[in-house]
């Protein structure tokens, strides 16, 4: 359902040809791609992780450095960065996934916090606070992916690719193993499932998705700077996954649309824009605590603050 709706909107935007909306929907696709990675890790394998912004930086800076300093072809730079991100995921995950649940989350939060500082400090590679300008754009057969339509199509192509990876793995025994680990790791292990290996797999898949999103963003902005990858980025990706519905396939997409498109739609409200957006967010937390597309019983203790007749109404919806 959600996919059909989004597909229709995507085509409409394309046909409508507004560069402004095309730009917004391109950003939606990139955020959704990174969010799908987090959704696999957090929503299905139940692993709290704040690694996505760091891996987006690997993609963004990988493409920028390879493209400007080494004159590597942008397509190759994008692929190479993604491979690097996957290797980075294994290097981080192999020692740190020995830690249980929350501890890996905390360790990875340190990574997210440290990413901008690291990018500032490694100035000989990254130009420090100045960032890297003039990143060569993607080109294919005379088409430049700086133009709104090609980058729009490419971003959505990558996003759909990420969805297909998510869906096919989830339908298989691999996805079932993730869900088993997430509900009861001890039971999964007692059945011979190597929980650490499967979490490592989600970390690597998420890293590749984040890296691709980072590369595409930088290659079409032609510019990268450390503050893009600050703590706000990972918070945004979390917000997208939680608002959209963690552990739901369409969740990251719906969340990304919510985060990017809604503020634009209510932009005319000027100074009330943030207020209205916050109110909408609170409404989601209260009414759909598992996210807009969230499955299962939608119930939160916050419901109790609502008037009784509203509570009764909500309950009726569950049954």
């Amino acid at each position, binding site marked *: 359902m959600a996919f059909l709706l989004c597909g229709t909107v995507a085509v409409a935007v394309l046909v409508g040809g507004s560069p402004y909306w095309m730009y917004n929907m391109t950003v939606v696709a990139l955020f959704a791609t990174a969010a799908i990675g987090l959704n696999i890790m957090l929503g299905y394998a139940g692993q709290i992780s704040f690694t996505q912004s760091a891996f987006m930086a690997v993609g963004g800076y990988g493409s920028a450095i390879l493209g400007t300093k080494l004159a590597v072809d942008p397509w190759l730079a994008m692929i190479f960065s993604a491979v690097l991100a996957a290797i980075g995921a294994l290097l981080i995950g192999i020692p740190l996934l020995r830690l249980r649940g929350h501890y890996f989350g905390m360790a990875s939060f340190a990574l997210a916090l440290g990413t901008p500082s690291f990018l500032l400090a490694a100035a000989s590679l990254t130009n420090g606070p100045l960032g890297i300008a003039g990143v060569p754009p993607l080109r294919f057969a005379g088409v430049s992916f700086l133009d709104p339509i090609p980058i729009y199509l490419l971003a959505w192509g990558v996003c759909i690719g990420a969805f297909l*990876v998510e869906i*096919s*793995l989830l*339908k*298989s*025994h*691999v*996805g*079932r*193993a993730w*869900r*088993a680990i997430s*509900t*009861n790791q*001890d*039971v*999964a*292990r*007692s*059945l*011979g*499932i*190597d*929980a650490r290996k499967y979490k490592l*797999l989600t970390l690597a898949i998420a890293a590749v998705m984040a890296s691709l999103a980072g590369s595409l963003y930088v290659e079409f902005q032609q510019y990268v700077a450390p503050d893009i990858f600050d703590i706000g980025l990972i918070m945004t990706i979390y917000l997208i996954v939680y608002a959209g519905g963690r552990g739901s396939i369409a969740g990251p997409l719906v969340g990304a649309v919510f985060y990017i498109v809604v503020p634009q739609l209510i932009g005319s409200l000027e100074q009330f824009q943030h207020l209205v957006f916050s109110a909408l967010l609170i409404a989601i937390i209260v009414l759909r605590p598992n996210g807009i597309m969230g499955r*299962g019983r939608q119930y939160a203790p916050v419901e109790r603050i609502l008037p009784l007749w509203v509570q009764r109404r909500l309950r009726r919806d569950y049954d």
Partner: protein
Amino acid sequence: MTSAGTVEPGSTPEGLVLTQVSKAFGGVTAVKDASFSVMLGQIHGLIGPNGAGKSTVIGLVTGFLRPDSGDIRFGAHDLNRMTPEAIAQVGIARTFQKATPLVGLTALENILVGMHTRYHGGVLAALVRTSALRREERGMAERAQMILERFGLADDANTDAGDLPFGKLRFLEIARSMVLEPQLLLLDEPAAGLNRVEAARLSALIQGIRSTGTGVLIVDHDVPFVFGVCEQVTVMNLGQILASDHAAKIYENPAVREAYLGTQRAQTEAGA
């Protein structure tokens, strides 16, 4: 696997062998110098009062806990240093004392999780959904459905495991651990909370599992249930093994009657 030639003459065909195993949690000694063995193709009971260390023994054997000292072997495998998943893969399955539904997965999916290690297809096959994997998936689902039928859960295949009533959940948990086709099955209080009919059905199922050559270790408080189904019984108290012998001999062992059966009977009579 040891070939027949390397087995010492006169050694018994024992599956699981614990030698002088000890485990303490902080100051509490949960298991102390425990030695006993469970043979394949036999049903072995492990009884003892609350806190005797029975669940700790299961945890130690299945790699969820590490012994402080002593040796745990299964055939040629030294279990002391193996992870729970590796131990499951060499043929030791277990259930847990507390309820462990994989919530959010249907009963059928719970069984399929148990069959996970039997899949040939890997991550790449799953990614491109090869026809071989799809065929494998269909075969597994059919087998899982058959297993549900055998455990009286055929009508609950599509029920979320979290919504199953307690008795059915217990059978689901046992079925899920059994589809590994283990050589040794460790059941932690499988009959607790079951009614008479369910307990009888459980006995029959356990006897069926044994007849395929699997060794079964049953931890339980229910003395009639244990002596009704077990050939071999080990009695624990305060972390130590009081006795380990044929069920009939245990039943007559005065020390055991004194320490455990006697008190149980006294309680039962006092309660009646």
